[in-house]
């Protein structure tokens, strides 16, 4: 099992990262990747940039806890989480989650689970910059609801056999 968690300011080279995740092994049958991208508008207003602040130490630990949880729930062969911080302009990537497994179901589910938790539990905060002001992005209840649905007991691993 390959696990890689990284916080960086630089843009994420998605193709290179995904190639590394699956490249070294021959038992991977599915890789799911999610890329979060900076939009050019927030709540109907044009933005010039996003600035991401994070809690160093806790952010890495919190992501690692959820990667462990994902590994316990699904038969994963690799997990990669890269989250950027600092100033990011529209069109640039912000976050990459990639999961590798023998079959697609586990990879899809684990990637979605990790993203839902990143949104609501990982200590990152976005500030939007418009032409004349800056404002902190407010948390969305839809994100809380998305994370909440994973709190039900996970399906048994051997249920499909």
């Amino acid at each position, binding site marked *: 099992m390959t696990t890689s968690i990284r916080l960086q300011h630089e843009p994420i080279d998605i193709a290179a990262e995904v190639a590394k995740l699956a490249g070294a092994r021959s038992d991977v049958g599915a890789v799911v990747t999610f890329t979060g991208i900076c939009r050019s508008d927030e709540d109907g207003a044009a933005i010039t940039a996003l600035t991401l602040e994070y809690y160093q130490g806790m*952010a890495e630990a*919190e992501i690692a806890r959820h990667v462990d949880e994902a590994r316990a729930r699904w038969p994963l062969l690799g997990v990669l989480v890269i989250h950027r911080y600092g100033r990011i302009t529209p069109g640039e990537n912000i976050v990459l989650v990639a999961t590798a497994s023998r079959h697609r179901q586990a990879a899809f589910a684990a990637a979605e689970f990790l993203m839902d938790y990143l949104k609501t539990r990982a200590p990152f*905060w976005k500030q939007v910059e418009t032409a004349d002001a800056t404002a902190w992005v407010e948390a969305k209840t839809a994100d809380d609801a998305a994370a909440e649905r994973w709190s039900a007991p996970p399906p048994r691993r051997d249920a499909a056999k």
Partner: protein
Amino acid sequence: MSIKVLYFAWVRERVGKAEEQIEPPADVETVGQLMAWLARKGEHYAYAFANPKVIRAAIDRSHARAEARIEGANEIAFFPPMTGG
């Protein structure tokens, strides 16, 4: 008891600093009580902690509820609901 306190995002902006060392009295036993105690430290703190229900906390880098006990904590952080991803 000396504790390192960290503030993030708008909590940091309102308090006016990113971190500090504090020594709350012994009767401040929980995260919620610590927020109430901080709110009395001055007008910036009062503004930052005016609505403690919307502020999240972490003790030693793990999420903690308002009723969590702070005894033995080295580092406590206060921040708004998270908006990463």
